[in-house]
């Protein structure tokens, strides 16, 4: 049976209380806080990721738009409702205009009588080519990638690839389909 020491041990960090030292406490604290931070981070990441769905119930960006010869001169609206695309045929080419106003993102209307695209939200107007001429639109409409399928000769439009007039991309080979 030993007696209690008269003075405190000289180095406080090594004071043992049932085997618990300052050092071991700190170690467990670091471990516990690291674990807590990791769990919180994982929870937050999972929450944010949860808000971004894997499967979209939206029309695909790439679609087949039928035979080039099925388009008459002028603006064709058959894909506007589903894909938001106008197929336009002029004298020697076919191109796909994206039906999204470059002002604030509404869908313009094609006005046959006035031969122009007109946005109902704030009045931006575009020529058949897509070039803006009135209203607040800061630049022309965008054109989508268009090509003729090597397999069945159908037009393939891909909205994921855009061609901008102000960057001189409308003359890019994939910005239009040549018609004889």
């Amino acid at each position: 049976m030993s007696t209690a020491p008269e003075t405190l041990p000289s180095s406080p960090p090594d004071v043992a209380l049932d085997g618990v030292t300052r050092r071991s406490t700190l170690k467990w604290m670091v471990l516990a806080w690291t674990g807590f931070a990791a769990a919180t981070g994982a929870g937050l990441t999972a929450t944010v990721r949860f808000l971004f769905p894997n499967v979209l119930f939206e029309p695909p960006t790439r679609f087949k738009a039928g035979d080039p010869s099925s388009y008459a001169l002028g603006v064709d609206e058959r894909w506007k409702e589903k894909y938001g695309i106008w197929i336009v045929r002029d004298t020697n080419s076919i191109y796909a205009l994206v039906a999204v106003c470059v002002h604030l993102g509404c869908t313009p209307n094609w006005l046959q009588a006035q031969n122009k695209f007109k946005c109902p939200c704030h009045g931006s107007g575009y020529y058949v080519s897509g070039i803006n001429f009135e209203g607040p639109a800061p630049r022309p409409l965008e054109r989508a990638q268009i090509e003729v399928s090597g397999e069945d000769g159908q037009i393939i439009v891909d909205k994921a690839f855009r061609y901008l007039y102000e960057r001189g991309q409308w003359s890019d080979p994939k910005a239009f389909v040549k018609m004889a």
Partner: protein
Amino acid sequence: MASRWRDLQQSIVSSQFWKSIFRVGIPNTNRKRVLAMLGNVVLHLHPVKTRKSGVKMRYTWCAGGVTFFLFLVLTFTGLLLMFYYRPTVEYAFVDILDLREQVPFGIMREVHRWGAHAMVISVWIHMFRVFMTGSYKPPREFNWVIGVILLVLTLLLSFTGYLLPWDQLAIWAITVGSNMASATPLLGIQGPGTSLLKIGDIQLVTSTNDARFGLLGGRFVGAGALLRFYVLHCVGIPLIAAFLMAVHFWRVRKDGGISGPV
């Protein structure tokens, strides 16, 4: 007869049921008044004492009180509307028409709508009054910040509620409004710096993972956006706003009550 009445009164007041609700008895002294305020979860949010100027309409315009009242009206009418409104592309618009034409008290939706407009206005008036009376100054600067957050939440409630009628105005207004999210720096597809985030030729931020996509749950305003805005409008934002309102009122008390004229 009088003594019997007094006996009855006495037995009610001294019953366990009564005393469990009214703990301090009739608050006829200052000490009892303070205890009554502190012992009640609703009352304790408010100051124990109010300055004379604090109840003066010409000083406060009661704009904050009006805002809170409108919030209660909107919570109640909104709850009623939820019994009829279904947040799906198929039903949303026709349910709105039904709320007007078929449901009893077709005015209920209008009360909600006009109440919402009024709340946005009264929040601004409240902010204007607090600014003009210098009530944002220390020690109230913390509560000013809470108030600014509540202002933003009010505007977000207004914005999310805007989509729910699912008419042309709603869809295109939210299309235009949510396009702002695609201009978020680094997180929006058109935002400054976003085009720098790429590995090789592959853009990291695309139209299916940018800030706008997260907000709408799709590339455009569709079924996902309607449901998201509905949940945020009816549950998410009101819960946060209610919590911050409690903090806001409690903070008024802690900072010495409604500020007085200098």
